[in-house]
Structure formats: C-alpha cells, structure tokens
C-alpha cells in the first residue's frame, strides 16, 4: 500500500521542494478542480431550470442539509488532525433526544437546550479522552460511540416521538432569520469564517496540522497532543449537539432514529473537499466548495429527474474519481515540473 504518499516516504530525486510546499500546491490545485466542477454544475443546472439562479433556491439547497453541513466544518478539523469521528450522527440524535426528554419532564426549554448541548459536548469529551489517553484508534472509539450514543438516544425516547416544542423554537429552525436565510445557515457561515481563521491563521490551527502530519514529531516538539485532540473531539461533540438541536427545531419532533447514516455523507463532503484521510492536509475552503458541489449536484440531478438514491451513487463515484484523478495527475511529468516551479 503506497497510501502514505510523499510525506512519509523518502524524497525522490528531482523533488527539491519541501513537503509543505508540495502540499500547498496540491491544495490549491484541488480547490481549483473543485471550483471548476462547481461552476460546471451551476452552469448546467442554470440551463435546466430558469429559477435555479434565484437566491431563494440557493438558500433552499442549504436548508435541507444544513445540519450535515454544520457538522462537516467540525469534522474538517478532526480529520486534518489525523483522527475521525464516526459518532457525530448518533451524538446529534442523542442531543435531540436529551432535549426532548428534558422538555417532556417539564424542564424550562432554554435550560433543556443547555443540558442537551452539555450532554453532546461531554459525549465528545469522553471519546476524546479515550483517544488522547489510550492511543486507541479514533475509528474504533467513535464506532463504539456511533453505536453507544444511538443506544443512549433509544433509552431516552424508546420508540416514542416527542414534539410540541415552543413556537419560537420551531421558528428558529424554519423561519427566516437574516434576509432569506434561516438561523442555521447564518450560523454555518459564521462557523465557516471563524473556523477558517482558527484553522489557517492561528497557532492552534497550525498545531492541528502538525499533529495530523506526524503526532510523534508534534509530541517531541513540545505540543500537548492530548490536549489538542481532546479540544477537537469536545468541539466535534458540541457542534454535533448544536446540529441535533437545530435538526429538532426544523423537524418539529424528535425520534431516536433521526440522522441515521449522516456520518457517511458528512465524511464524504470533507474528503471530497481535499482533506487527506491520513491527516495533515486540506483546507476549509476546499470543504466549503465540496459542500456546494454536493448540494448543487443533488439539486441538478433532481432537476434532471434522477432519483435520490442514484444521486447518492453519483456522489460516491465522484468521491472515488476525484482522488483517482488527483493520483493520476501526480504521475504526469508535466505536473511534476509545475509543482517544482511553483515551489
């Protein structure tokens, strides 16, 4: 398996530039590729439907997947850090069920939201603690979380459905908050900007990359690896909790099985955004572009009367082909020169 790519292997002769530079070029060209795909999708869709370019249509694209999209921002951090969080969808459901159960037992609704978010953050914290302290692969720990927190949600609600939330809560999920945008979309945009600054412009962000590249080197450089991981997993849990609460607000009622299978969609978006599954590379801009592609592609395929499940297949194929294309491009001598020249 030659999956570790340049980073881990010895530099091949003729590859002068440092690994970081190659990585930067790779990221930029990936974003370019995504942008081209996105523009192509949008142009195609616009020719298919006259209402496509309306602002309302764009907002609607996001409206139906906003919870996944919000979680994808946090997932980007986790994967760049060299870990993965499979439990997000279950934590979403867990938070929503805690909210519903607290509401049902007469807790004031504002407090119920706080409890739900705290529960989700602690779910992330516990998993982060196990990952950071024992060194067990996060794939396994969060697989246990995926099953376990879904189980916790089932224990809370069993097979009931709980609704009748306060009116303002329903408005939070459905009504326009700022212009045509619902609250969740505004929150997503804020998270994207803040996340982008934290990831790309702060020392914390640099540490996330360094650990993702090589946790041992990071440790010997004096970075508190365990603490960064703990922070990221707690944040991932909290964000999943926020998404779960917003999901409850949009749906108007909660069952224990909400959001089942979302984790795969979320991870697909992040990986399509050019984030390496091995950690250490990727940008939030790439993920934002990938999110737009996935949403627009689904919308466009829908306009072309392609069924929802075939759309899923197309996105799966896009995921594989995009990485395959990148690998093939890397082998072209022309491109290799380009990488050297730019770096």
């Amino acid at each position, binding site marked *: *398996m*030659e*999956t*570790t790519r340049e980073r*881990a*292997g010895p530099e091949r002769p003729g590859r002068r530039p440092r690994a970081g530079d190659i990585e930067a070029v790779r990221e930029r060209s990936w974003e370019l590729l995504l942008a081209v795909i996105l523009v192509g999708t949008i142009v195609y869709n616009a020719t298919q439907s006259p209402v496509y370019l309306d602002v309302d249509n764009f907002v609607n694209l996001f409206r139906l997947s906003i919870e996944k999209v919000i979680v994808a921002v946090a997932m980007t951090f986790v994967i760049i850090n*060299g870990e*993965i969080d499979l439990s997000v969808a279950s934590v979403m459901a867990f938070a929503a069920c805690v909210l519903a159960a607290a509401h049902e037992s007469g807790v004031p609704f504002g407090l119920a939201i706080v409890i739900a978010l705290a529960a989700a953050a602690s779910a992330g914290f516990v998993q982060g603690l*196990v990952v950071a302290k*024992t*060194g*067990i*692969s996060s*794939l*396994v*720990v969060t*697989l*246990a*979380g*995926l*099953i*376990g*927190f*879904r*189980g*916790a949600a*089932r*224990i809370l609600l*069993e*097979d009931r459905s709980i609704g009748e939330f306060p009116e303002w809560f329903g408005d939070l999920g459905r009504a326009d908050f700022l212009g045509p945008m619902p609250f969740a979309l505004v929150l997503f945009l804020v998270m994207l900007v803040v996340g982008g600054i934290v990831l790309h412009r702060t020392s914390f962000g640099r540490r996330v990359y360094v*650990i*993702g590249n*090589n*946790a*041992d*080197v990071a440790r010997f450089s004096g970075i508190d690896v365990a603490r960064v991981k703990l922070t990221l997993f707690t944040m991932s849990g909290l964000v999943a909790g926020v998404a779960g609460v917003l999901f409850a607000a949009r749906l108007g009622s909660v069952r*224990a099985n909400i959001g089942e299978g979302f984790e*795969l969609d979320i*991870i*697909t978006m992040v*990986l399509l955004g050019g984030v390496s*599954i*091995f*950690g250490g590379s990727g940008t939030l801009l790439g993920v934002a572009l990938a999110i737009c592609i996935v949403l627009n592609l689904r919308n466009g395929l829908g306009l072309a009367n392609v*069924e929802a*499940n*075939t*759309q*899923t*297949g*197309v*996105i*799966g*194929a896009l*995921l*594989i082909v995009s*990485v*395959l294309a990148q*690998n093939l491009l890397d082998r072209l001598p022309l491109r290799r020169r380009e990488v050297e020249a730019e770096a």
Partner: protein
Amino acid sequence: MSSAVDIARLDGAHGRPGRTAVWVRPERVKELSLLGVILVALLVFGFLVDDYFSGRFFNRVTTSVAITAVLAVAQTLVIVTRNIDLSVGSIVGVSAYLTGQFASSNPSVSPAVAIAIAVGLGTLLGAINGVIVAYGRVPAIITTLGTLAIYRSWLISHGEGKTITADSLPSWVVDLPTRTAFSVGGLDIRVVFAVVVVIVVVLQVAMQRLRWGRRLYAIGSNPEAAAQAGLPTRRLVLGAFVACGALSGFAGFLFLSRFGNITVVAGQGLELDSVAAAVVGGVSVLGGSGTLVGAFLGAVLIDVLDQSLVRVPQVSEFWRNAILGALILAAVIADVVIGRRFRRRWSAEARPHTKVDGSAGDESEAARVPALTAPEQAGRTGDR
C-alpha cells in the same frame, strides 16, 4: 484449561524477567479471554433468564451468528492489511438480491450454482474495490465509502422497489437454515453453522501457516517495509479485497436463505457490525494484528448478548445499542491493557538488562506485533 493457568503464572511472575519463557502469544490470550467473557456472559444470563440453556437458544444463536461471523472474518482479512472495507453491507445486499432473483426465476437451480453466483458477484465487487485501492492508490476508507453508495444505489435502481419473497424461492434455499448437520449431546449443529466454522478454521490456518497469510500481516504491520522487502503488496491487497468480497457474497447467500424476503435495502448497516465484531475480537484497525478466530468469537459474543438481552425481563430492548457500544469500548481498552502488559514482558525477555517497567508510557501500536517488523513510530497516527 492449562493455558489459562499459564497466563495466571505469567501475571504472577511479572517483574521477574527471564524466569518464565513467554510462549503464550498475545492473540491466544485475546482469544482465550474472549472465550472467558462469552462463558461469563452465558453464566450471567443463565442466572437471569429461566430456561436459558436450551437447544432452541443454541440454534437461534448459531443460525443468526453465521452471517456476521462470515463478514467479521471477511473484514479481518482486509483490516490486517491496514485497510478497511465499508462496502460489505452493500455487497451482501447485491449478492442476496440478485441470487434471489435468479433462484426465483429458475426454481430448479442447484445449490452449487446458486452459491457460485452469490460468491461470484461478491468476488467481482470485491475486485473492483481492490483494484481501486491497490492500483488506483485511493485510500480504502474513501474507496469503500464510495462503493458502499454506488453498489447500493445501483441495487435500488435495479430492483425498482420490488421484494424477493420467500414463496418464490426454491424450497431448499428457505429450508437451509433449519437443516441439521449432526447432533452433539442433544444440541443440533446446523449445516450453515458447521460450514461457517469450517471456513473460519481453514482460513485461520491459512493466515497462520501460509506465506500468503503471513504476508498480509506483514503489509499491515508496515506497508513500506513490506514493499521494500519485495513483497507484491498491490497484488496481496487486491487479493485481500477479493477474498473479502467473495466471503461477503457468500454471506449474501446466507442472508437470502435466512430471511427469504429480500428488499433492496437488505444488509444495510452490516459493514459496521462486521467492523465491530472484528474489533471486539481483538483485531487492530491499524493493521498487522488480529486473528480470524478472534473475529469469529467477537461475532459470537455480540450475537449472544444480542439474543440474550431481549430475554432478560429487567432490561428493555432499547438498551441493546448502548450495551453494545460500551462492550466495544471495554474490549478495545482491555486489549490495550493486556497488550501493554505483554509488551513489557517481551521487551524484558529480549533485553534482559533493561528494567521491566521502564517503557510503559509510549503507545506504539505496531509494537503489538513483535514477531514482525520493527515498530513504525511515524506511521502510527498516519494510517487507518
């Protein structure tokens, strides 16, 4: 039980390096402790549930464990090479549905042909995964996340929402799960279960004794070292995916015969069950370590809990997932603890002058496989 006694002696002798020769390999310890946990679980449930130890319960567990056990073994073949196959659930679905479709339109189909179709379909889909991973150099998790969606969406559009019904299938298919191979002291051993056990044992011996099996471990232990040692890593990884696909295809056939009624969403979610069983069975997702017998026992343990919890009056059915999640976590943490203990002893054996409890802090996963290549520190967090 002599090995269990030896384990106890090892623990007792801890701190006196060199006195007892370490011959109990860690994978044997894992398997034995799993067996112990299964026995304890059975005893506990025996207390809680009236009439627990019955032939019917044995049959129920052995019939239902067959599918997850095959998948756990299939998954393990891929995981030991430091890859993962998330598409097994979709392969099971495709194989079960298409085989069912064929069998219902050709009622006179012979068992051999039906099984060959199921296994053949699985092999084909596994080969697609393997080619993309090994030759396209696309990480396994990305590839199989993609093919999970692709295979399933193809099946859904192919099936057009139609259901394969048990009535339309040849009777031998539907009767297969209740066929008994032989009886031991009042317990009926079902044909399906016997076949699965044979598969597990044969493959386990192959993994342990054949060059092919050892090489899979070597790749998972350190892919670069394996490549530099001249192993045909691409072909071997492709082989692992093909074998995984073939077994998943066979699991699809078992799925068909067990449930009879097959919809286009058949087998959804089995990929996570298979990974869970392998992990509980002591297979490291970082590759290079874990046995097929362990994965099989992991599947058995999960299934015993699954089938038993519903019969405990004090526990509602809604607790199932929460307990399963806690079990997986407990299993991996126990694994690390046991692993650490043994690694310390090994390093003491290898270097008699070193203090035994000196190096407990660092967690190099690759060091779990001392028989193979040297620990690859840098690669630890790198690959999944």
